[in-house]
């Protein structure tokens, strides 16, 4: 009787280990593909200097840096590759739109959705937008006007000649990046937001802190472990000390093979205090920096934690 109980227990424990293993694997796989964008509709916003092409739907702002914009066959054509994106077939039925205003800048917009199986057996889905305009334009992502519900591109007049290195036929990359040389002109509102005291009069006070945790360490799942630690074990302490709710909005890996020696906490303006409280709670040594202006935008995250090599 006693022996049969033991056997039963042993079998149960093995069953538990196996179930948990497969559960972990399936959760891991689903987590790796579960975020992306969904295009519902679009609109062309007229503007004297640069009109905007704005898509509405559901977007993952953390994936905006992976959007690729390339020049098409002519200077009036641009191609945008939106990785991890689906088109809402109910709301956005047309795949080729030519019905734009006669005096408007756009001529044609085509949308192409592609779903393929990857080498690793996963699913790769993306949407290719081809934008044709009447005039020469430079299509750029406008992070200020993009968030979790909008994805906006500005159609700018080209300021500088596109430098294509090498022969055009062999070159795939033709980015137009202009080095900013002139001292930046700071507007009145920027001057106010940049000064810590005047910023106090202008920034909204938060009652919820949206945190993204990204893995920048060679250890697999480090971001997940840190997120679990924050969300389960430290959440109450943190919320009490910060005086606001803590919400983990994104857990993912840094794609560009970045390995950071120390965990880095990027915070938006006016959130230094919250970042310091987070750093105090997290194990190991942290580096805290304001989000660089080049990356600064109206993203849904207030704080980004890049989990470094030092996270145990």
């Amino acid at each position, binding site marked *: 009787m006693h022996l049969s109980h033991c056997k039963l227990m042993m079998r149960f424990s093995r*069953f538990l280990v196996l179930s948990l293993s497969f559960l972990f694997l399936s959760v891991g*796989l689903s987590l790796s593909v579960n975020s992306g964008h969904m295009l519902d509709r679009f609109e062309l916003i007229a503007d004297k200097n640069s009109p905007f092409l704005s898509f509405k739907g559901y977007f993952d702002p953390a994936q905006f840096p992976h959007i690729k914009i390339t020049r098409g066959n002519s200077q009036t054509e641009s191609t945008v590759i939106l990785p991890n994106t689906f088109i809402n077939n109910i709301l956005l039925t047309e795949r080729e739109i030519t019905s734009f205003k006669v005096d408007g800048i756009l001529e044609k917009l085509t949308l192409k959705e592609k779903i393929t199986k990857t080498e690793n057996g996963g699913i790769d889905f993306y949407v290719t937008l081809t934008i044709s305009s009447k005039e020469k334009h430079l299509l750029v992502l406008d992070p200020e006007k993009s968030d979790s519900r909008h994805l906006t591109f500005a159609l700018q007049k080209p300021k500088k000649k596109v430098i*294509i290195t090498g*022969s055009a036929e062999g070159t795939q990359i033709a980015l137009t990046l202009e080095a900013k040389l002139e001292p930046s002109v700071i507007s009145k*509102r920027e001057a*106010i937001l940049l000064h810590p005291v005047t910023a106090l009069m202008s*920034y909204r006070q938060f009652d919820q802190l949206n945190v993204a945790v990204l893995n920048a360490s060679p250890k697999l799942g480090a971001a997940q472990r840190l997120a679990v630690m924050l969300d389960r074990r430290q959440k109450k302490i943190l919320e009490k000390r910060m005086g606001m709710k803590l919400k983990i909005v994104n857990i993912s890996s840094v794609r*560009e093979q970045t390995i950071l020696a120390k965990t880095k906490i990027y915070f938006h303006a006016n959130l230094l205090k919250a970042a310091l409280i987070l*750093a105090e709670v997290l194990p190991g*040594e942290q580096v805290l920096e304001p989000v660089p202006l080049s990356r600064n935008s109206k993203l849904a995250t207030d704080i980004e934690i890049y989990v470094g090599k030092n996270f145990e």
Partner: protein
Amino acid sequence: MWERILNKKIYFISLTFFLFLVGISLPAFAFPEYTSRQKALKLAAVLDHGYFKSIKISSVFVKNRGQDDYYLQAILDDGSSRKWLINRIREWTQTDELILSKNRALVFPSAESTDFGVLEKNDFYRTVLNATAFVKTFSKHDILEGKSLVLGVLRFRILQAEDSKFLSTNKLGERYRYVLELENGSLEYFTYSDAFALLQRSAFLEEVPENVSVLRKTFKVIELKKIPLQIEDELREIWRFGIEVVFDGPIKTSPDRFPYQVVELKLKDPETGRQKTQFFLQIIFPNSEKIGEISGFKNHEYLRYVELDTDVEHQKRIILRAMVNPDALNLPPFIEVTDRNSIIVNYYSSTDQSLTQPPDLLASRSVSEMPRSVFTPDQQETEFEKNYLEAVGLIREAQALLNTELRIEIYFKALKALKQAALSAEFDIQIAQALNQRDLLLSKMPKLIIRNVQMSILALYIESNNGKADPEISKKLLKQLIHAERYATTQKQKQKISSLKSILR
């Protein structure tokens, strides 16, 4: 079934299989082996007539495995036919086993994508040899990420065997090929991918625009000076103190090129031997050097062990480091570039913990996407923005004045601007901030007015022999007192106001 599955042998096989699956999922972000049809066709054209391990490539054609997975098949001059996967092509280009014809180099700038570029090396040499300045743009995760400095070019060289970085690679496995010596004494090493990206970015300038200042030498620190504590904002009781870093020449760089960071260090307590967490506030000065010993300070307000160090990880960078208590650090530092060859780092202190605490306002609930500041994301100035900016400007103007009478006058104007801002607000956050600001101003005004009236009466008493005040001045002061009475919060204030009113009458 479970009987069978859970027997020892199958259990271990299953567990091993699971661990294997985890193992193979590790290189999920490895460089792709296949590419699209369009890219494969272009790549084949680029590789044609190149050299593979010193054997001439006769022809390259495109093959596919599935519908979208394309790779290359190469026929070499020795008659052999090779299957070339894209990741292998990338590896061979990195190790110079695959060389393009016409003095070109194949580059794969991204570690995840099969996007490629062709560097025309001759074009690169011509551009870099004619360049007088180099636009250095700092890379991701650098404290200066995205910012640029224009540095004078001294000399360009192709790396030789005697160079320390000869045959060494960057984190993507690409070999360093070139070195650019700059006039400030720093060295920039480039891989083929770097050269390709720099050409694309127009980072080499033959002629420098007039309004751009080229940094031809480093800023050398002469001394550190303390700036004493003074009031910055009487409404929120924020105090300011600073450290002035004096250099050997004018600073021709904007203040945003001097960023700050907070670094957490676990240091061993010499007394207890335990690890103790310490926070250091660091201001970074690029293109700067510390030539001799610069003495720091042991204490300056809430800063401890203020010292200037050379950054060991980056060239020509110094760090102004100070130990801080994180509880005292409510506001970030602010950098000012002066016209007397110095940079002032302003630090702020306040005992008011509510500065960083969220107000209990419905308007602050982040239930949906809300702008971070009261300003709308598009750069167009709204009516609210115009009025609010005016109010903020007036408040700051008043705070810089010593004359209390004038300060009160300007605060009254700011109150009017805030009212206009509230009336023109379009969002809850805007009206909430305008009203908050108004209430803060109103709460501080009675104390200020009482002090001003007291001082004015005293001055009038001393100045006039008959003890009678100018009726115009009395009228003005009385008006101020009436305003103060309406918003006085304590009984003591009310008593003082009524006694001052009776004196003036």
